[in-house]
């Protein structure tokens, strides 16, 4: 990973705790029983448990408690939208008191574990079974790690040059920079016995048939595809770019913002908000989020949009793009049903337009596997099993695009299901 990356200018939006700050915050925790924060965590981390261990100076145990449930707990501590998950459900909210800063405490514990090189997990005795994992993002890594603990052999097939998935290529750098995601990949792989094959496209480079021949089971964790683009006049201009693609460029290398005085981001979701904050952070003077609905209708989190506004974000509500031109984005105003109103066309000036309206689904990739796909999403049961025996799935490719922590939970749980399935066949 190059050191000279555009994302490197970003500082942590939520700074790390030092030891005294962490213990002070940990001591505030009420140590709830049957705690709402645990129920709000997709990976079900024993949150009161790991926090109590910070307070008692059992940091090794604290980190182990986190990573036992969520082997990507270090990155989740940074990237989870805790405001709508664990922290949002902290009982202190009910008391009108500041909720426990669970994410920051989890970051403290896991950072200490990383700094001190603590390891907690060993691979199980070799079962002789092999599982192929397609996609080395959070779901695939969580699945691989848990499978190794069971003693199964694992190969990860990743089309990029490095593992990490969106943690490495998509996370807003004021939450986590790519080097930290790489550290976490190393930590996951440290369990040993995970074969990594990068730069491999499935099924182009290795066919499904070959994969099934090589492995006793498969896990599909390939996430989402490229940015959804709008088929509008001017769409091929150089200054109209997909947001996810632009973020990846910014995180893995450099983006050239020379001469960019204003930018428009199309969309109302969290990727749109992220990219607004990133453009502002990189010094673009005027960044406008343009969305068909109103502020309350946008799907992005309120706390994220609030932070974007604090950073200077502008907004154009109830507008639909109808074309790109050199000077900016041509839009029509929309009615309450988000439908464009004829005759209201005007232009929002922009030197750069980033399109953040979603990503394609990759269900078509699995045509050769003959399993159920719904609107591009791989259909699974609650354990992660697809309609085809021995093939499991998790992460954005199945859930359509959720948080990193959801991908981790699904990958981990699929590993449990794979283990059971393999045992049933022995």
């Amino acid at each position, binding site marked *: 990973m190059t050191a000279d990356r555009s994302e490197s200018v970003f500082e942590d939006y939520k700074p790390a705790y030092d030891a005294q700050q962490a213990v002070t915050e940990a001591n505030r925790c009420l140590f709830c*029983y*049957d705690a709402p924060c645990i129920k709000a965590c997709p990976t079900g981390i024993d949150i009161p448990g790991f926090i109590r261990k910070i307070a008692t100076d059992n940091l090794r145990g604290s980190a182990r408690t986190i990573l036992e449930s969520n082997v990507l707990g270090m990155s989740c501590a940074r990237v989870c939208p805790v405001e709508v998950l664990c922290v949002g459900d902290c*009982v202190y909210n009910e008391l009108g008191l500041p909720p426990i800063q669970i994410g920051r405490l989890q970051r403290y514990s896991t950072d200490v574990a990383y700094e001190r090189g603590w390891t907690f997990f060993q691979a199980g005795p070799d079962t002789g079974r092999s599982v192929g994992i397609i996609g080395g993002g959070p779901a695939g890594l969580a699945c691989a790690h848990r499978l190794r603990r069971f003693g199964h052999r694992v190969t990860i097939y990743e089309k990029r040059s490095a593992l990490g998935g969106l943690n490495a290529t998509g996370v807003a750098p004021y939450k986590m920079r790519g080097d930290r995601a790489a550290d976490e990949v190393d930590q996951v792989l440290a369990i040993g016995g995970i074969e990594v094959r990068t730069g491999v496209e499935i099924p182009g480079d290795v066919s499904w048939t070959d994969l099934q021949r090589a492995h006793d089971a498969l896990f599909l964790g390939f996430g989402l595809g490229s940015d959804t683009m709008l088929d509008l006049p001017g769409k091929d201009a150089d200054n109209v770019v997909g947001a996810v693609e632009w973020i990846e460029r910014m995180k893995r290398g450099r983006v050239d913002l020379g001469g960019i005085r204003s930018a428009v981001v199309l969309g109302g979701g969290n990727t749109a908000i992220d990219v607004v904050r990133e453009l502002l952070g990189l010094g673009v003077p005027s960044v406008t989020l343009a969305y068909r609905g109103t502020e309350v209708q946008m799907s992005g989190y309120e706390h994220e949009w609030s932070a974007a506004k604090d950073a200077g974000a502008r907004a154009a509500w109830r507008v639909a793009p109808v074309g790109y031109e050199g000077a900016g984005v041509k839009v029509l105003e929309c009615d309450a049903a988000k439908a464009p109103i004829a005759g209201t066309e005007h232009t929002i000036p922009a030197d750069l337009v980033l399109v953040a309206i979603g990503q394609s689904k990759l269900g078509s990739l699995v045509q050769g596997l003959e399993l159920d796909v719904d609107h591009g999403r791989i259909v699974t049961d609650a354990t992660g099993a697809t309609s085809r025996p021995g093939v499991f799935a998790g992460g954005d490719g199945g859930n359509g695009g959720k948080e990193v922590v959801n991908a981790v939970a699904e990958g981990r749980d699929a590993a449990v299901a794979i283990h059971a399935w393999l045992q049933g066949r022995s």
Partner: protein
Amino acid sequence: MPDLTTNCAGIVSPNPFWLASAPPTNSGPQIERAFDAGWGGAVWKTLGQPIQNVSSRFGAIKWKGSSGVGFNNIELITDRPLESNFREIYEVKRKYPGHAIIVSLMVETREEWKEIIARSEDAGADGLELNFGCPHGMCERGMGSAVGQEPKINERITGWAKEFAKVPVLVKLTPNVSDILPHGRAAQRGGADGVSLINTIKSIISVDIDRFVPNPGVAGKSTNGGYCGAAVRPIALHMVAALARDAEFNRAISGIGGITNWRDAVEFMLLGATSVQVCTEVMLRGYRIVEDMIEGLGTYMTEHGFQKIDDLVGRAVPAFSEWGDLDLNYETVAKIDPDKCIGCHLCRVACDDGAHQCIHPDPNGSRVPVVDESECVGCNLCQIVCPVDGCISLVPVENGFQAATWNDHVTAGAALRPKKGSH
């Protein structure tokens, strides 16, 4: 504003708040600053043959980030020359004639007691406090708690002091005994005008778990210290109350032990203390805490219609009863206020694991747990662990049984209600 003037065993002070004999009363300039801050009296750091102290001397219990809820020390009596102490006592008394200076004393022989009492009175002491309590260092030399633990020696030395003293004599008692009553009574037989209690409790405050040495460490070793601070208050309250309700004991009490604020002071006074002495909280926060103590006590007295200190002293003593005189038919159950409940379920786990398994998850799925009142014994644990003020209350239940104590039951066969929670 009510009159806070206090007369404890004949020692008069403008308010009941005295500094206990300890580091905050080590010197004249300190006590002058304390009186300026508002303290009504000061018990001078114990005089005797000056000693040599160690480094370090103090240790503390840290609880959820707050240090000093429990505290201990291995410091001994004054290490300053007696002449300096007496000169400063004289100077402070001259400048602050309306404040009480009680001189704490600890010597061995009858002749030494005679001499040091005379010199204390010459310097202007308003009263004397015989230190029969110190549980570390001095007791190894036959003084302090070594005296306080032997009623006969206590009585004899108290008798000497009373023989020589013209000013009132308080005997400071040690809590390092199984029952305080013989010791208070011994002081009374010796002629003491009052007692002050408790002195500190023998303790090891903590252990350095990496160096394998108890704290506070002194060149790789440690020794037992005297435990004090807020954590000892319940022990002190009990001992004060035990003497206050004793039919035989009838002397004034100066209450000591974990007093941090006016509320703590009121508790001691309601259980029989006329004055109260404070050390640890001053060591941790400074003399300035007395401003709130004076104001808080005054407001409390006004709200309760108390005009003078004697109006509240001992008001809770009649309610301090033997277990056998408690009403066994009085029944309460826990009620959870659903509007206040935040869903932490600390009550549920406490009841499940530490009480009587009668608080359950709501079968309808709300966040508010449900109390099975048919099983609830009214033990209070849920209320104690609940983090929300006023959320859980213990509500009396009408069960149709007349009040009946255990003593009523065994002596007169009074009917008792059916037991709960004994499944």
